[in-house]
């Protein structure tokens, strides 16, 4: 008889966890946080904002998250997308208390953490957060693709 009660309690608990998770998953939460630098991240910060994604190999939604953030990075000028392999940066994972992958941090131009989402964020919400966090573009005509790792301005020789 105890077994039946355990079943009912477990399924009830599972339903509560599942519903809470569905509602919270990927939601951007405000966070007054630490400041990260390009050196810590191992990649240059975006001019206006940086989307930092923590991933692991054992993470199903990381791939879709990468697609969303890369899209946003290509769409909004001055926004860089940096993906960090959580397993090779356990120091940073502990420091920032990251418990799940994907976890996405939104950094402002100075590298301050302003938002945090665990789970796969929705594209519309990331765009809305950027509009909120990033100052209006004055020099938005400068359409350099921000996910381009090479930061040297037009050093490529014109061979054509």
């Amino acid at each position: 008889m105890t077994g039946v009660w355990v079943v009912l309690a477990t399924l009830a608990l599972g339903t509560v966890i599942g519903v809470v998770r569905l509602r919270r998953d990927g939601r951007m939460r405000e966070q007054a946080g630490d400041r990260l630098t390009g050196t810590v991240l191992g990649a240059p910060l975006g001019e206006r904002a940086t989307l930092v994604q923590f991933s692991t190999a054992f993470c199903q939604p990381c791939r879709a998250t990468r697609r969303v953030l890369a899209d946003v990075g290509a769409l909004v000028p001055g926004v860089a997308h940096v993906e960090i392999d959580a397993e090779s940066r356990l120091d940073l994972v502990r420091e920032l208390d990251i418990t799940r992958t994907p976890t996405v941090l939104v950094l402002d131009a100075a590298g301050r953490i302003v938002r945090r989402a665990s789970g796969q964020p929705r594209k519309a919400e990331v765009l809305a957060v950027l509009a909120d966090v990033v100052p209006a573009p004055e020099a938005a005509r400068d359409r350099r693709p921000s996910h381009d790792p090479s930061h040297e301005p037009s050093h490529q020789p014109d061979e054509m």
Partner: protein
Amino acid sequence: MRADPRALRFGAAVTTLVLVLVLVTGSAWLLAAQAVVFALGLAGRSPYVMLFKALVRSAPKETEDARPPRFAQGVGLVFAVAGLAGLLAGITPLALGATAGALLAAFLNAAFGFCLGCETYLLLRRLLPAATLEVHQ
């Protein structure tokens, strides 16, 4: 290796059903069978997934990385073995607790598509940075 997410979800649903039956009947044999299924799943040969593939011939719209669910089957195996030890040794709280843990994970996967086992991976790595938890292809 790629996996059909529909087959994984089906497997989680069958696992949920089996673990409910284990809790209701207290059958060590059934839990042992489920432990074997977890072990086969860890090896990438889950009989539930094979059953789905035999029944449903259509190709999946998208596939997913097979490693996370295999790791999760390994987590399930640990819980099933603990539950089995509890049943055989007559330690009822261990038997019920461990089986309930496995049931919770299977239910979340079947009903909501959340892979609890996959997500414990990073937490485990945070606790045991030196551990190698590679699942070989």
